[in-house]
């Protein structure tokens, strides 16, 4: 086993596919610092013209919700269909909504 404490830290990579779209999570890379993380993200996740912009964030900086609390957090939304904007009539002339 390699010594985990000597591994480069992990960074999460977000790629903007093209102008106007939001950055989406693409995966992760190991890197010693932010500069190296951007280079590794570029070389790992944009080799096939996937992106026009990159974000990298130290994985340790992400606070995630607790899977054990998934029911308490997300189940209550299941029967609240009135929160979806599906009860409005969309005028005929509007095509992109």
């Amino acid at each position, binding site marked *: 086993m390699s010594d985990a404490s000597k591994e480069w830290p992990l960074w999460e990579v977000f790629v903007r596919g093209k102008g106007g779209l939001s950055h989406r999570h693409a995966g992760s890379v*190991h890197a010693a610092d932010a*500069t190296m993380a951007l280079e*590794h993200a*570029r070389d790992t996740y944009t080799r096939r013209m996937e992106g026009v912009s990159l974000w990298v964030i130290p994985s340790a900086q992400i606070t995630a919700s607790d899977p054990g609390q998934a029911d308490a957090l997300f189940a209550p939304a299941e029967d609240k269909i009135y929160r979806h904007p599906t009860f409005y009539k969309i005028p005929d002339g509007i095509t992109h909504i």
Partner: protein
Amino acid sequence: MDALATTALRLGDDALILGQRLGEWCGRAPALEVDLSLANMALDQIGQATHFLALAGAIEAQGRDADALAFHRDVMDFTNCLLVEQPNGDFAQTIARQFLYAHYQHLLFERMATARDARFAAIAAKAVKETAYHATLASDWVIRLGDGTEESRARMRAGLDWMWRFVDEMFVMDETDDDAINAGAGVDKAALRAEWDARIDAILAQATLQRPPSRRPVLGGRQGRHSEHLGHLLSDMQFLQRAYPGATW
């Protein structure tokens, strides 16, 4: 061969041999991400080689395409500079080679992108973006390793020491280069040296490294006088096309 064909061949050979060398790291790099960095640079170089060798074949008009020039010439017919054929060594030695060559290549393509000959200018205009990234990536690694641990610093210094003898050859001008300039395709390589020196020195300063001491330069690659390393590289690279000529997949 006329001057333009030879010029295209030299550019193609530099890129081809460097690409093959970088490709040798595939699956062996210090980290998965670095493996991809090196493979990406290798593929950029192979792409440039394909364009320049195809152009050399077209100008020569002897029926040789890029593959024929890459896989069916012997070692003394290769015109790459000696720097690019130097063995990978450890990661620092590979980075040293990449650092010294990428800055030269970037300056060269910057000038060539505005050449009168549209064929050379078009290839250079595409390649200059690739080499800009190679130069940045290699420079970042020189700084990291040079200004890193005692061991990384010693390795970076040893890598630069190994490669330094082959620097001068990149900037040597000969009759072919002069004829190519007159024909609207060449670049005055000797005139790139001052800016190359400035760029290299700036990075070495950040890396807290000294320039290796000047040594007697080793020359001859452009005339086909190569180190023993190139023959081994070619036997690996050319094996398949030599054993199965024209094989495709």
